[in-house]
């Protein structure tokens, strides 16, 4: 690995007194990130959203005292209100509590977003490293495959797959993960092209390091900061796609609530209860906004040259 100043500081017996303990890439980035109030706020909101969704069963039992599948036909289309805490955000067409379902929907939407992004990143980064490092025929093959995938409108492709296979939540995560990694691959490939010509890679090769070792131990750590930026944006993008698919009725299928399928449900009777359309959308928007802002903030923190550039 390219020796960073942090490594030197770690082995150096003399500690240099300075305002900051170490000036490694990550601690340096963290130092900058801490000062970026917008990004810190986004992280806080996102963590809050994750915690709220994770704690959905607790809220269900102790705060709202209303099961997420529980119905109350007489209480259908209730307006958002404070008198009945379970109808804090109103109730749907069969009197289910909107707020409890939103919390459970959050579990699904966030889970799909993070897991599918993990699959995308794994595929995208590995293929990008391989294409960029091996070059030649391997690179040509991967690039051609990407050209083809990019030439099918993503939603059309997802549409036929989901419509023909009617997947459950887990299969949907895999499908979303298997599509949409092309941008990550192209980015990592470009970075690898440049990095493989650097002296530390040549040095590693001269001491006899294998191709996979160079890719994983020497090139990957240098691409890693960018991958974190891509990851934040990627999760946001996937949550948007999942919500669109679920809205179309081919993503997460009811009765499992997801923010997308709650919207598709609510869209059917928004002349009766327009507020049901508002809250799931706000949740999606807020989550994705936080993720995008975190992505922007990470980029500024990790690469100060780009600060304020876009």
């Amino acid at each position, binding site marked *: 690995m390219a020796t960073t100043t942090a490594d030197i500081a770690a082995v150096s017996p003399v500690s240099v007194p300075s305002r900051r303990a170490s000036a490694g890439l990550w601690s340096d980035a963290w130092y900058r990130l801490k000062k970026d109030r917008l990004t810190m706020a986004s992280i806080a909101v996102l963590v809050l959203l994750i915690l709220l969704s994770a704690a959905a069963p607790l809220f269900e039992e102790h705060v709202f005292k209303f099961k997420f599948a529980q119905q109350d036909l007489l209480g259908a289309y209730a307006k958002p209100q404070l008198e009945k805490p379970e109808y804090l955000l109103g109730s749907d067409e069969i009197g289910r509590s909107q707020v409890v379902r939103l919390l459970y929907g959050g579990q699904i939407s966030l889970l799909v977003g993070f897991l599918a992004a993990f699959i995308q990143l794994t595929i995208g980064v590995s293929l990008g490293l391989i294409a960029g490092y091996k070059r030649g025929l391997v690179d040509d093959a991967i690039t*051609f495959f990407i*050209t*083809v995938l*990019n*030439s*099918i*409108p*993503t*939603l*059309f*492709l997802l*549409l*036929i*797959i989901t*419509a*023909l*296979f009617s997947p459950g939540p887990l299969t949907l995560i895999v499908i979303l993960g298997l599509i949409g990694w092309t941008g990550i691959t192209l980015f990592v490939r470009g970075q690898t092209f440049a990095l493989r010509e650097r002296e530390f890679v040549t040095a590693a090769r001269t001491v006899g390091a294998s191709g996979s070792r160079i890719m994983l131990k020497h090139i990957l750590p240098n691409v890693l900061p960018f991958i974190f930026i891509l990851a934040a944006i990627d999760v*946001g993008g996937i949550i*948007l796609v999942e*919500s*669109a698919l679920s*809205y*179309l*009725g*081919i993503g997460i299928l009811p009765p499992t609530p997801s923010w997308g399928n709650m*919207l598709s449900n609510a*869209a059917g009777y*928004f*002349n009766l209860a*327009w507020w049901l*359309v*508002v809250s*799931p*959308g706000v949740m*999606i*928007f807020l989550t*994705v*906004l936080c*993720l*995008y*802002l975190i992505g*922007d903030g990470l980029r500024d923190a990790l690469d100060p040259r780009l600060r304020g*550039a*876009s």
Partner: protein
Amino acid sequence: MRTYVIRRLLYAIPTLVAIATITFLITRLAPGDPIRLFTFGATDLTREDIEALRAAHGLDKSLPEQFALYIVNAAQLKFGNSILYHKDAMSLVLERLPNTLTLAVTALVLQLVIGVPLGVLAAVNRGKWIDNAVRFFGVIGHAVPAFWFGLMLIIIFSVTLRWLPSQGVLTVGKDVWDIGDRLKHLIMPAFVLALAGIANYSRYLRTETLDVIRQDYIRTAEAKGLASKTVFMVHALRNALIPVVTALGGVLAFLISGALVIEQVFTWPGVGQFTYAAARQKDYPVITAGVMLGGMLLVLSYLIRDIAYAVVDPRIKVK
């Protein structure tokens, strides 16, 4: 230039073949027998009838044979008859193409007309409130789920204010050439479809303009004593506009894909909405035709982008 265009055209052929292969594989790998589905509920069919149907659709042949036949037919844009409509699938999809194109092109124009000036304005006023507002919008416009934004607009402008129609391309009974009525139907879906692109373009243009005005030749132009307006309009803006063309590929992909959802929200009778309906009914020929048409549109728009790029930035042809 001509050789470049021809070479690019030839590159498109393997891509199209590969797209056709992928759609073939997905539809064939899917569980369920199309003939079973086709004849579902028909009790008076004999085994021979089913075999005859199978043969009529070419499903009695081996998979490689089916594939060869499929590719030959696909090259002639034949994807078989729709199971629901008993008409040629591709011509059914093509009937919806003008509507999708109207929507996508209007959205593209809106993106350019609104997004580009916003980005330039932000760059010129760097650090001022207008810059912050544009940057803020640049993130927000990206994070809003487009279909939800569409629903909200329908609630506001159709349900509450009753200003704009919420669905279709034309009021029933109106003259086909009633442009005013068509525009009223078009404005909401087109704007919703354009939103993310407007945000994108304002970001690109801001970055690019800031980048360009730092270049040496801009300083040279200013040193020559040119008016700052001339420097900006003639020297800076022309180069800042290059990413408008570069981004076109992704933008068009987004428009064609995004149109599918937006068409559904506004019941806009386009290719996406039709393919979606077909997918729900498992109308395989129409699904294949719709996906292939989407793919062809994309390949075509990438082609247009690359040619436009070569025109705008002559360095690209060297590669």
